[in-house]
């Protein structure tokens, strides 16, 4: 999330799309309602009329998986009706860049597509550079090859008729949303977007979000109070666990995982440290080597030295071009390529797409370790439906762990607030905190490597891993939190201050690439420093008046509450909207020129001068707004993705239509697909005529492991259901409350039918399309009558960039049980 929950109240228009915030993030909705109370407009775009819709001023239905068509229509509307915030667009985005002649879009494909490899060559999407190596610009935005004109051309096809034909949204509803949201393209107006898995779980997931980013940039909504692009994430610490690098492609702090071809630290730094030829670009990632070396020091301690490249070679390397993502992991497990498996605080037997494939894959393992609070479908997969324990060789170790109130530590919410929590009771029975289990298990593993024989491959990273995180034989979260923050490893003088060996590093600007600092995760540097545990702060003051609460807990990076906030001011450092000030330049001024550097408000995105002086003259030392982009400008044209620089509507991999009215290409040509017998996909197959989707209810959470056993919650929502329209119920002779079977090409579940007006048939390309939806909180272990996982239905296909599965749009049949 670029902004944070309380900030929703600062919005003039709140667009909720791909999310049911009122039911799935109920407390976030308090701040949406505060925006509404102040006269703001709330818009909900969703296939289903939910409790979010009931509170919205405008609800617009759409067919699952057609968000880019919907948003593409809005981009066209904004451009053709001149709703853009031009000063913002020119100064802070790449709208003026000139794109090279090789870029083109034809027949549903961008230039550079290799049909054999099913991949694009992105070099076709490069900018035209000037003699200094900086992209050429046309600040008038008129050049036909400038980004804005190419954008206009690309979305010229997204007229109301075509969009409505694809999405099924009535044209008048499209217009209502477009008009309301585009009203935020003014300096004193803010529009925000709240999304969730309704946008990510698609084979065009990243491009769904990109389409909205483009709109937010055109309307000048990034970096401002009440603006931003805000993912409502699903788990209390999924932000933190991502930050800490528990994903195959990133180390902690978003340092890319090295691949085989990056054979040295020097090469790593060269490959992943961007260079900008524009002196006004802060290009923050130019600091990457400091963060990488400090990370390696945190991992390997004294063993990491300049002469051994800080043990860079010990880091495991992926094969170039090979993905090790969730879908790939279970594909490999299904193909018997894996022998051992840890399922730590997760229930993949129900949580991932295509549960039958996942469950069968587990039977191919030699051993697995499951750590959880309650029995679950993963731990007990060997006695699940269709399984014969006698035939399953997989050994299972089940380890009981503590709940959140039985240990101490920090978690990071979607708004990047990292909050410390305390222990309120001992865990029950033999259960232990995860930290203790990890710490003890590793000591036990390490014992086996202390006296390696010649055949033992690379014992060094195990033997030398820094592992001094226990106090009195108990895992000590404070010691790890300090290691994550980082230490000076020798006396270091920075400016006029000397830090002693062993001092905590105050903030990441002080990290070094020479081995004199350690830092487990650079974006958390400052979280636990000389001022103490900043994550535990509980000061309720809010001098900003816009709900920043700068001394309540701590937010990464460097306690900045709204990121990209340099875009909230004009090029002279004055807030675009004086009524909702995020930051403001407050340096001294003489004869129309700034003479000292000072900002007030939120922690600015860097301390530098603004781009211009008060008299309008350019400052050579002024810096551009988007500090994490190598060139300093936000990307309306995004050449870094695998499926094109502009979002294009493609159908879900399973869809109810044979044609895409926007082009010859029906589905995303570079989507991640798998080919085992369990990976069936059926488009326009009369056996699976209805669009299916999945979602959550207020009373349950994820696969339900932590809610199905809670008496109040299971009483409120005891079993799986399937919602369907009255028209569909009539078609299939189904009555409200009856047991029905929902089946897809991959599996089936029994569910209770809820016949409701919340779903309505939509007219798509002249045909009536029905949609049904199921919650995915249930599993066969408990409660016995609760039903099984809705993910038995979902396909294991993924977005080409993130490889997140397409769980939100697939094809099903619904029939009465026994018919």
């Amino acid at each position, binding site marked *: 999330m670029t902004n944070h929950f309380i900030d929703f109240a600062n919005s003039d228009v709140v667009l909720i799309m791909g999310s049911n915030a009122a039911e799935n993030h109920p407390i976030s909705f308090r701040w949406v309602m505060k925006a509404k109370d102040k006269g703001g407009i709330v818009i909900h775009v969703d296939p289903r009329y939910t409790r979010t819709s009931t509170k919205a001023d405008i609800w617009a239905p759409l067919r699952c998986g057609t968000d880019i068509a919907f948003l593409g229509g809005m981009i066209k509307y904004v451009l053709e009706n001149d709703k853009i915030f031009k000063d913002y667009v020119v100064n802070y985005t790449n709208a003026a860049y000139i794109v090279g002649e090789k870029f083109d879009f034809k027949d549903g494909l961008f230039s550079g597509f290799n049909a054999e490899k099913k991949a694009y060559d992105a070099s076709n999407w490069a900018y035209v550079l000037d003699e200094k190596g900086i992209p050429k610009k046309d600040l008038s935005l008129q050049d036909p090859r400038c980004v804005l004109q190419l954008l206009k051309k690309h979305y010229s096809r997204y007229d109301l008729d075509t969009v409505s034909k694809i999405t099924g949204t009535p044209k008048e509803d499209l217009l209502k949303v477009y008009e309301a949201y585009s009203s935020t393209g003014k300096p004193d107006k803010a529009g925000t977007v709240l999304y969730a898995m309704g946008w990510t779980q698609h084979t065009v997931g990243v491009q769904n979000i990109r389409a909205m980013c483009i709109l937010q940039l055109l309307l000048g909504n990034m970096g401002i109070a009440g603006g931003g692009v805000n993912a409502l994430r699903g788990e209390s610490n999924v932000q933190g666990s991502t930050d800490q690098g*528990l994903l195959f492609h990133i180390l902690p702090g978003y340092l890319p995982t090295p691949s085989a071809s990056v054979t040295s630290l020097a090469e790593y730094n060269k490959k992943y440290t961007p260079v900008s030829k524009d002196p006004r670009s802060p290009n923050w990632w130019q600091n990457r080597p400091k963060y990488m070396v400090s990370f390696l020091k945190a991992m390997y301690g004294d063993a990491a030295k300049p002469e051994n490249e800080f043990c860079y070679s010990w880091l495991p390397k992926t094969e170039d071009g090979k993905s090790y993502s969730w879908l790939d992991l279970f594909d490999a497990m299904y193909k018997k390529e894996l022998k051992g498996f840890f399922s730590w605080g997760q229930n993949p037997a129900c949580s991932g797409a295509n549960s039958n494939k996942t469950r069968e894959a587990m039977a191919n393992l030699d051993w697995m370790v499951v750590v959880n609070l309650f029995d679950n479908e993963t731990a007990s997969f060997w006695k699940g439906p269709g399984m014969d324990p006698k035939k399953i060789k997989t050994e299972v170790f089940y380890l009981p762990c503590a709940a959140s109130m039985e240990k101490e530590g920090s978690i990071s919410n979607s708004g990047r607030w990292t909050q410390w929590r305390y222990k309120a*009771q001992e865990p029950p029975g033999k259960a232990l905190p995860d930290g203790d289990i990890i710490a003890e298990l590793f000591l036990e593993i390490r014992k086996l490597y202390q006296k390696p024989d010649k055949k033992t491959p690379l014992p060094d990273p195990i033997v030398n891993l820094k592992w001094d995180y226990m106090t009195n034989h108990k895992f000590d979260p404070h010691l790890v*939190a300090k290691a994550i923050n980082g230490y000076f490893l020798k006396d270091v003088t920075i400016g006029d201050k000397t830090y002693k060996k062993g001092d905590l590093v105050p903030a990441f600007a002080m990290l070094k690439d020479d081995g004199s600092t350690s830092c487990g995760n650079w974006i958390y540097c400052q979280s636990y420093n000389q001022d103490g545990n900043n994550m535990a702060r509980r000061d309720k003051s809010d001098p900003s008046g816009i709900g920043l609460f700068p001394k309540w807990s701590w937010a990464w990076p460097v306690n900045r509450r709204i990121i990209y906030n340099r875009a909230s001011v004009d090029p002279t450092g004055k807030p675009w909207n004086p009524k909702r000030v995020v930051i403001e330049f407050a340096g001294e001024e003489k004869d129309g020129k700034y003479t000292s550097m000072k900002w007030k408000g939120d922690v600015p995105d860097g301390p530098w001068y603004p781009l211009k002086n008060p008299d309008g003259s350019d400052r050579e030392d002024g810096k551009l707004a988007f500090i994490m982009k190598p060139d300093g400008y936000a990307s309306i044209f995004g050449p870094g993705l695998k499926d094109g620089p502009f979002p294009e509507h493609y159908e879900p991999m399973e869809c109810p239509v044979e044609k895409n009215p926007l082009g010859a290409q029906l589905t995303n040509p570079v989507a991640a697909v798998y080919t085992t017998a369990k990976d069936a996909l059926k488009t326009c197959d009369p056996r699976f005529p209805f669009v299916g989707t999945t979602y959550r209810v207020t009373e349950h959470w994820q696969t339900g492991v932590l809610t199905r056993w809670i008496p109040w919650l299971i009483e409120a929502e005891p079993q799986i259901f399937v919602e369907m329209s009255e028209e569909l119920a009539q078609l299939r002779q189904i009555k409200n409350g009856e047991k029905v079977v929902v089946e897809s090409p991959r599996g089936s579940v029994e569910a209770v039918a809820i016949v409701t007006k919340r779903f309505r048939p939509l007219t798509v390309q002249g045909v009536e399309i029905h949609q049904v939806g199921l919650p995915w909180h249930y599993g066969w272990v408990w409660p016995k009558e609760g039903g099984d996982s809705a993910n038995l239905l979902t396909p294991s296909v993924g977005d080409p960039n993130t490889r997140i599965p397409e769980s939100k749009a697939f094809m099903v049949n619904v029939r009465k049980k026994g018919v």
Partner: protein
Amino acid sequence: MKLTRRDFLKISGAATVGLALEGMGLNLKPVEAYTATLRIKDAKETPSICCYCSVGCGILFHTDTKTGKVIYSEGDADHPINQGSLCAKGASLYQLAQNDKRSTKVLYRAPNSDKWQEKTWEWAYKEIAKRVKKTRDATFTVKNEKGQVVNRCNGIASVGSAAMDNEECWIYQAMLRALGLVYVEHQARI
């Protein structure tokens, strides 16, 4: 005005009784004070953050100082995000602390067995460590086909966990990477 608990329950049976009675000039402060002491009398208050969605609501746990058990939880009124309010899941959180269905034992399921066996932590750590070593060493690639150093364990995978604290996540990734794992994934991917 003195009220017994029975009296209070009687009058609180009516909807919006508080407002109505205060409107009639009755002072409900002693009642409020009394009811607040009922469950959490002598309890220790511990601030926490909800473990469900990612909003990060503040929760107060009340622990019985005699038994050491959590007996109640409520929204943290000081917390700027939720200001004391909670959703259905957050409001039920003490039932996660007080729950007789929680797993309390280390269990093992042997190959082709149809049941769990109870084990000790010491046994589990040793046995898991043995399997990790055996699988890691047998599936470890020092150099790939191109001769590039990859130092990678191909045969073990991990998923998890967004349900852990940051500090636990960090040492977990450290352990997995020290072992050479590349199949490292979790909830964020799905």
